């Protein structure tokens, strides 16, 4: 039943002679009495990964009347229990199903869309599996742990013609949109430099002793393609400080402030041509991501972009575009500032190019599921944001300047560094390269 409805939706969209905006929402006659959408006509959603971000996302989806949230999946039974309780509480029933293995979840559930909020080292495998199932995907940033994985994911999304929204929700905030739009439209003149400040790294904790895996946690599955290591109490959230799973604050936040920087620079579908910088790595303990990082990217146009932990930058966190006629600065907390208040007060004119507008990130995804249009942060754009951080990581790990061809996605000056574009997988896990 569900599958045929999906096929119909896609077919219907395809047959509207290119008028892609036609929503498939069922006419008013099919609505429930109170104006709510009847469950059979809602977008059927499930979630993989119900930790911190996953829970927040689920809450967001549950608040949307066109969503029917039916199942969750997590390697930790505690997460499963909490997520099921949250969903059932919302619908006042006991219908939510839950799984420990995403493969079983994808096999058994008949979904329209899935939200994925798992550690970075799992993004590619789960993202590609979901795309191959024809599901539309709301995937957390960063897109992937390596550029090769990220490209494979974009390929899978495009091959399967699924809608992808990245959790780069700052794009759906008015101040970030406005700042990027001003920069993009030359309101500060020709941009010559951009500063991107991301959080300072975590203080190392040494190496905690190996300990029993907590009840309910499938540690082997949590590790998945990452190297086998004993459980040491570092798992949820704090995986961010270990390079087997993440690149630290740098890669965690690339999908925010670097993403916004690219938007305003007009480089969101390309990348730098060279990257050079330094990272400060702990000498002891299991946390091994850089605690301080500072690198410079140069783009084909000559624009430079410095990405560094906040302590190293004058403005700290956020994105600053510097043009020959002024600057614009954006950060969280609705922050938007400019070298001259007039820059912020001027309205966009007919000669300007408005940037994609979304006022709610999840709603934008749901709208695009209906319209089959591209979301505000499709996979290609997410790949280009995280690529900056991953190239920075390679430049810092090798201690060398990296020349990058953003078209062929190759490091052109350093055959050694080129190897680091791949994050190897432990068997039997394999990346589906040409998805």
């Amino acid at each position: 039943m569900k599958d045929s409805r999906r096929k119909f939706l896609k077919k219907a969209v395809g047959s509207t002679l290119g008028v892609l905006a036609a929503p498939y929402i069922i006419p008013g006659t099919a609505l429930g009495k109170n104006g709510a959408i009847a469950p059979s006509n809602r977008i059927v959603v499930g979630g993989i990964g119900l930790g911190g971000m996953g829970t927040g996302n689920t809450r967001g989806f549950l608040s949307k009347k066109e969503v029917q949230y039916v199942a969750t999946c997590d390697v930790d039974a505690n997460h499963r229990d909490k997520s099921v309780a949250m969903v059932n509480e919302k619908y006042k029933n006991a219908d939510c199903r839950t799984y420990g293995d995403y493969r079983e979840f994808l096999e058994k559930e008949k979904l329209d869309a899935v939200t994925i909020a798992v550690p970075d080292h799992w993004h590619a495998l789960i993202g590609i599996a979901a795309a191959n199932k024809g599901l539309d995907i709301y995937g957390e940033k960063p897109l992937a742990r390596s550029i090769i994985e990220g490209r494979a994911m974009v390929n899978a999304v495009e091959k399967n013609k699924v809608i992808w929204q990245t959790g780069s929700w700052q794009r759906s905030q008015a101040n970030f949109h406005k700042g990027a739009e001003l920069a993009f439209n030359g309101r500060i003149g020709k941009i010559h430099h951009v500063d991107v400040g991301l959080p300072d790294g975590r203080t190392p904790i040494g190496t905690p002793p190996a300990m029993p895996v907590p009840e309910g946690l499938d540690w082997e599955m949590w590790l998945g393609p990452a190297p086998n290591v004993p459980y040491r109490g570092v798992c949820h959230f704090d995986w961010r400080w270990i390079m087997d799973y993440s690149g630290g604050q740098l890669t965690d936040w690339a999908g925010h402030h670097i993403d916004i920087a690219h938007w305003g620079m007009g480089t969101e579908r390309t990348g730098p041509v060279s990257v050079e910088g330094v990272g400060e790595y702990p000498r002891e303990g299991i946390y091994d991501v850089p605690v301080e990082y500072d690198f410079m990217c140069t783009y084909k146009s000559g624009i430079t972009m410095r990405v560094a932990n906040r302590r190293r930058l004058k403005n700290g966190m956020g994105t600053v575009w510097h043009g020959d006629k002024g600057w614009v600065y954006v950060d969280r907390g609705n922050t938007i500032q400019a070298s001259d208040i007039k820059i912020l007060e001027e309205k966009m004119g007919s000669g300007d190019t408005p940037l994609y507008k979304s006022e709610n990130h999840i709603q934008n995804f749901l709208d695009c599921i209906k319209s089959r249009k591209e979301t505000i942060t499709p996979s290609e754009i997410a790949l280009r944001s995280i690529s900056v951080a991953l190239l920075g990581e390679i430049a810092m790990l090798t201690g060398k300047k990296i020349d990058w061809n953003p078209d062929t996605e190759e490091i052109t000056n350093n055959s050694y560094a080129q190897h680091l574009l791949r994050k190897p997988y432990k068997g039997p896990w394999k990346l589906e390269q040409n998805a």
Partner: protein
Amino acid sequence: MENNSKMHLKTMKNTFFLAVAVVLMFTRCSDPAGMNALLVTDQSGESSESIKAILENTGLFNVDVEGATPSLEGYDVVVLQMENGSLDENAKSSFADYVDKGGGVVVLGAAVKNLPEGLGNPSRGKSNEAYDYLVENINTMHPITKGLSQRWMHNSDYLLFNTTGIDGEVDVLATANADTIHGGSGKNIPVLFTLQSGSGRVFVSTLGNNAKKSMTCVGFIATLQRGAEWAATGAVTQEVSVDFPNSVSAHTWTSFQPLSLDELFEKSSTYTIGNSKKYLNDISQRIRSCDGKKETYAMYEDKILNFLQSNATVDSKIFLCHELSWIGSDKSKNALEKLVNDKDLSDAASYALQRLNL
């Protein structure tokens, strides 16, 4: 004609003298231990020997060691290490004369109390314990601090509060935070600074108050070595070591000089997870900081391949397989393919091969 040839002869003579002078100049500059340093110390044994070794390891100084009332004549730099007593008035006056005439002085640790006009007030005390604290170079353009990590972790030391409040009177190069947990005021206080007196130069480092633990800190060693050269000449020619600490981890040289690569591999060979992996990380840092030439990577590759054949621990071999995963050549591929069947190294070998086969 005659005049002309006399002129010619004169020019030749001048050229000759000039050439000799240039040769002499270069000879002096390139003579590794061409300068004379005097260590004035009230310490004996390890503490003063450490400072002597640090100065000698620059290759720039011949070091004499003296007790309390020295003659400073003929020295390019005088290092004052005085943990207990103070200089007497005569000694103070000869120091002052020496500096005014262009001499270079380095004042270490508790010896700051000898600085004029209460610049190093000993009554202010020190931290209630020795601990690793962060030093921040607030002047990164000075020859002593130029090129060093801006924020670096100093190894296990007492923080002297002597210099609290002197910021306006000296050129502060670096500060540390006297946090309240360790009995401080919560303020940033100078730990490295310079003073100008007459035509002489004075460099002060209040670090190094926990005997060898603090003196083996690469940050302490490097700033002392650079400070001594600057005090002597006004410039610093020493390169910054790749071992200079960053803001996260302190770094020590137990023999006051860097370990050789072979020593690093040797010390890494016993690593097991949970114990210190600093030597392995030092190898990574050396690779990262290398010149990037093919032959250099090949040298590291050969050393790692030998290491994989040795009786080193599995954990240390796994760590170094990660380095091989990007610096390895076909030689590594062959070696790693054999290790894919090794019960302990199979995953690590496969990891490296996936990258090398990219």
